[in-house]
Every structure is written in structure tokens, then in C-alpha cells.
């Protein structure tokens, strides 16, 4: 097992950040922690990277206990905190050399691993890290986290605040790193990224709601979901809220995702209700549940 958590709990004063968390991450797996801000993702990362000691429970990373063998863990994991935390006043090259030196290695030694990513920022290697764009900062941070060839990579919200193109690139990079045998634990608040993981854990309020592959998680969704569209989005939401059989409804892109309380729901009935209420250009069609739908359902 690459990462193994057993009944981990952590409180900050009266606030319970993590409640009895247990899960396993297999070697070479790309595991996603999906949850909103404040769900406890960062706390979990800090416990696994030996920065924080849990109140209860046991955890180990690559076979080392996070409390007793923290020294070995620090040698064999890479951590990229959510906040950009490299030296802004050092250049790209200096940052990389600094982390390589601290880990007792050199850029040349592990160049193979970071090559693909590093070539993209190499033209700017004399530029100070603070002057890089958001996407390039992410790439540099990833290089720094990889420079000592870690067995496990911890990425805490790596794509928050990064443009869609860079986000896509970033996930492609993660996929390639995974192929090189690195176990990756990544957290994200974006549900669309969850689908790219091997397995995901949905986390909220310090508790794990569900752990499974993205496909299975979606399958578990109990209800039929309908995409409802109309010209006047606001009116549509208001009217759906007033409908007696509405089970859930929330805006999803240009549509509203709707589920009905009853199992034998007839879309025509709803269409009629909405038309009576003066809505125009109504479309109702069945759609597949997404991870976001599942999350919303589980988090209720």
C-alpha cells in the first residue's frame, strides 16, 4: 500500500477538521480527493506529509509511519502545497537547484523525470519565480516537488486559480507521471477533474462520503436526472422551487439539473406546469448523472 489511513481524526479546538478518515491508495494510483473548500483536504495533506500530527488514528506513507518514521517520508515524498510556495525572489533555475541540493541530489541526476515539464519553462530559467505566469509557476512547483524522484506525490489543489488550458496540460502531465510509477494523491474542488482520477474520495465536513472509481460513483446515483432549459433561467429556478414534486434542482451550466420525488416521473407533467406558469422555450431531457450530481446528493 502506498498510502494507508486508519481512523484519522484531527480537531482545531472545537472544530473537527477530520472525522475518522480511513482509506488506502494503491501504488501507482492517481487518487483524487474531491470536496469543497473547508472539507479538510489540506489538513489531511498536512498529516500525510508529516507537517501535522493527527489526534487519533494511524497513517503510513510508502510503509513508513507518519509520526515515527517521518524522516523517511520526507525523503521519499514530494509535496506541492496549495499556495505557491517557492522563493519568488530566486530564479527558476535557482529554485530548482535549491530543492535539488536540499534533497542531496542534482538537477542532472533526475533530469529525465522532470524533462518534459522543465523544457516548457526552461526558456525562462533566468527569470525570477515571482515574475512567472500562474501556469508556469505551477509547472515550476511541480518540477521542484519531483526533483528528488519521490515515490509518492502530494498535490494540494494544484489547479486552483489556473486557466483551463493550463489545467488540462497539468492533468496530462500527471497522467504521464503516473505511468512512470509515481503514486499521486491530488485534491481538487473541481468535479470535472475528478473524472480523470483512477479512484476518488468525496469528502465534506471532515468526513468521507464515498470512495470509488469515477464511473462507479456516478452509477450509484439513485435518481433519474433531467436537464431543464428555458429562456428565463431565474424564473425557471423560482418556479421549480415552487413545484410540489421537486426533489433536487440546481443550475448546471446552461441547464437546471432536476430530479423528481417520485419514481414514475412524467416529463410532460412538468412541461405543462412550467408552461402554465408562463415560461417559454422549455426543454426537458434525460441526462447522465455527473460526479457533481453525486456529490450534491451525498452532501445533502
Amino acid at each position, binding site marked *: 500500500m502506498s498510502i494507508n489511513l486508519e481512523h484519522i481524526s484531527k480537531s482545531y479546538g472545537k472544530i473537527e477538521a477530520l472525522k475518522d478518515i480511513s482509506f488506502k491508495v494503491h501504488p501507482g494510483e492517481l487518487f483524487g480527493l474531491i470536496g469543497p473548500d473547508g472539507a479538510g483536504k489540506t489538513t489531511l495533506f498536512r498529516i500525510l*506529509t508529516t*507537517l501535522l500530527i493527527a489526534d487519533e488514528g494511524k497513517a503510513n506513507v510508502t510503509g513508513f509511519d507518519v509520526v515515527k518514521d517521518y524522516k523517511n517520508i520526507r525523503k521519499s515524498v514530494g509535496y506541492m*502545497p496549495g499556495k505557491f*510556495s517557492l522563493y519568488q525572489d*530566486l530564479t527558476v533555475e535557482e529554485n530548482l537547484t*535549491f530543492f535539488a541540493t*536540499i*534533497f542531496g541530489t542534482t538537477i542532472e541526476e533526475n533530469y529525465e523525470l522532470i524533462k518534459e515539464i522543465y523544457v516548457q519553462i526552461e526558456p525562462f530559467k533566468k527569470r525570477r519565480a515571482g515574475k512567472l505566469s500562474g501556469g508556469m509557476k505551477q509547472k515550476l512547483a511541480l518540477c521542484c516537488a519531483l526533483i528528488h524522484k519521490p515515490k509518492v506525490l502530494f498535490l494540494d489543489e494544484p489547479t486552483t486559480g489556473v486557466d483551463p488550458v493550463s489545467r488540462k496540460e497539468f492533468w496530462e502531465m500527471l497522467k504521464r507521471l503516473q505511468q512512470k510509477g509515481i503514486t499521486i494523491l491530488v485534491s481538487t474542488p473541481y468535479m470535472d477533474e475528478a473524472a480523470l482520477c483512477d479512484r476518488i474520495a468525496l469528502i465534506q465536513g471532515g468526513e468521507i462520503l464515498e470512495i470509488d472509481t469515477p464511473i462507479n460513483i456516478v452509477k450509484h446515483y439513485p435518481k433519474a436526472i433531467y436537464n431543464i432549459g428555458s429562456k428565463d433561467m431565474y424564473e425557471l429556478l423560482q418556479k421549480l422551487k415552487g413545484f410540489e414534486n421537486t426533489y433536487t434542482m440546481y443550475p448546471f451550466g446552461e441547464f437546471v439539473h432536476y430530479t423528481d420525488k417520485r419514481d414514475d416521473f412524467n416529463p410532460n407533467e412538468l412541461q405543462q406546469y412550467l408552461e402554465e406558469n408562463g415560461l417559454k422555450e422549455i426543454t426537458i431531457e434525460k441526462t447522465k448523472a455527473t460526479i457533481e450530481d453525486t456529490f450534491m446528493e451525498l452532501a445533502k
Partner: protein
Amino acid sequence: MKRLGYIIQKEFKQIFRNKSMLPIIFVMPLIQLLILANAATFDVKNIKFGYIDYDHSSTSRALIEKFHASTYFNVVANYPSQKLANESMQKGSVDVLLEIPSYFERNLQNEKFNNLGVTINAIDGAAAGVENVYVTQIIQSFNKKLMIDLLQVSDQSQVQPINITTIPSFWYNKTLNYKTFMVPGILVLLVTMITLFLSGMNIVREKEIGTLEQINVTPIKKSQFIIGKLFPFWIIGLALLTVGLIISKLVFNVPMVGSLVLMYFYTSIYILVVLGIGLFISNFTDTQQQAMFIAWFFMVIFILMSGLFTPIESMPKWAQYLTEFNPIKYFVEVMRMVMLKGSGFVDIIPQLSKTLLYAIVMNGLAVWSYKKTN
């Protein structure tokens, strides 16, 4: 060793890249040294002097003339009445008032005794004390002359009064130049201030920008990181001392009687104390602002209780015990001893051993309280 070397190299790079940092480190202290050493004088001069002469005799005029002649007093006004004189004292246009009563001269000749009224603005107690001494000196010398005059008039055969005069010889600072006294002290402050603030804020800064978190997940050793962080400031402290000493010599011509090697030896240990305090502060704060305020709190107490501006001997007993914990006190003492008196290694052993102990305790505490995990 390679790691440590690179951390030190990195720190220096960061210090020298910070455009606002370099002037703060080197230019500001020197400007302070130049300004403070010239301005922080204990001499009381240009005293605003006023008088009320109810007597209008030749003797009273002769006494006033004495004040005119003094370089310390500026005779600003002659008041016709006590009321007007008090008003100007209230306004602050006069600091010392001399009241010569009516029949001053006549009573002096008849009764050989008289009183003068002296009023001093004592908001600044220390200055008032000095002013009192000046006034007394002038009146005494006037008195002596008067006595001789009176004696000559009344009885020629009477024995001359015995006069005891003292001729002081001022050691270590022959001309009583206050700059000789102040410059080494101010230099101490500057070295302390800069090294304390820089070291106190440095690690907090890494906390603030989040790099400490990244560093903490690396196999770097606590000792390597701390030494790597503090060593540059140790060097900067010694560099500051060097620049300060050069200025003391060239600009203020402060004598350097003692051994420079001894001074550097002591300073190198002293800076360890300051760095230890700085590190300790940064361990218990989360932002540079907090660190700055705490550093200031200690700095102000250290400065005021260092014996630099006020002698420790005149503090209350409890305060004197407190000064035992003030590293600046020892540095000021050693600096003055070595520079002005030429004290040797044996003479500074008490200060040196206390400083060394302080350094060990402070750094021990700092390293102990520095945690990579929280």
C-alpha cells in the same frame, strides 16, 4: 555541508536582491550614527535666562553681568514684576528666573547675609539639575569676590579665608568629549537593532509566504536550516561593526586604545545572543508585523536599560537586577572598556562569560522551540 553552503548562498542572494533591504542594512544605520552622535548631547546650553531686579544697585547689576558673560546663559529678558516673569515662565519663553530683592546691596553690607530667589523650569529634571549647578556656580564665584571686597573694606588685618580648590584630571576621555562616550554606545545599538530585526523577521517571512511549509517537507536538518538562515546575519553584524568603527575613527576621531581583535571576538559571540533572540521571536509569531512589534518591545527596554543614556547605578535596585539580563548592557560596557580604556581579555571576562552563557541559553531555547511539525 553542501546543503548548508547552498542555503547560506541562497540567503545572501535573497538579501542582496531585495532592493529595499540593502539601504536598510547599511545606509540607515550609518545615517543614524552620524545624526545621533552629533545630536544626542547631554550638555545643557543656551539656557533662557530672565531676571527681576528690585534693587537696581551696582551689586545687582554686577551679578547680572556675570550671567551675561556666561556662555551657558542667554539673558532674554528683564522683568519689572514677579507676575510678568511668572507669565513668561508659563509661556515657556524663559527657563531660569533670578529674583534680586530690594535693598539687596544694603542688606548685604549691613548684615553680611542675603537671599536670592531662583526659579527653574524643571519639566526636564536632569536639565534643571544642571542649570541649578550653573546658577549656583556663578553666584558662588560672585559671592567669593564680594567677600573679598567686603573684607577689604571692613578689616584689613583679618586672616584670609582658607580656600580648597580641586583640580580634576579626567581619565579615558580627557576633554570630556561626549561623542567619545556616545559613539561606541550608539554603534552597539545599531549592530543590535539590525541583526535582531533581520533575524527575527527572516524566518517569519518564510512562514508568511509559505516557503517554510515546503522546506519542512524536505529531509533538511533543523540545525542546517537554522545555521544557514542565521549565518548571513552574523556576517552582516560583523560587517556593520566594521563600517561603524571606521566612521567612529574617521568622522568622530574616537580613540581606540584596546585591541580590535578582542572587540571582534566579543562581538562575534554577542551577535549570537541577538540572533538567538531573533529566532526565538520568529518561532512564536506568524507574521512579520507581529515579529516586528515584539522585537521593538525588547529593543526599547534593552536600550533604555543599557546604561547608554542613563547610568545603571542610579536606577532602583530591582531595575539594576533586571539589567543583568540585558545583553546590550554588556556590549556597551565592553565596547567602552576596550575602546576607551584599553581593557584586555582578562578585564572583560565577567561580561564575556555572561554573554557566552546568554548565547548558549538563548540559542538552546530557540532551537528547542523551533519545530518543523505543528
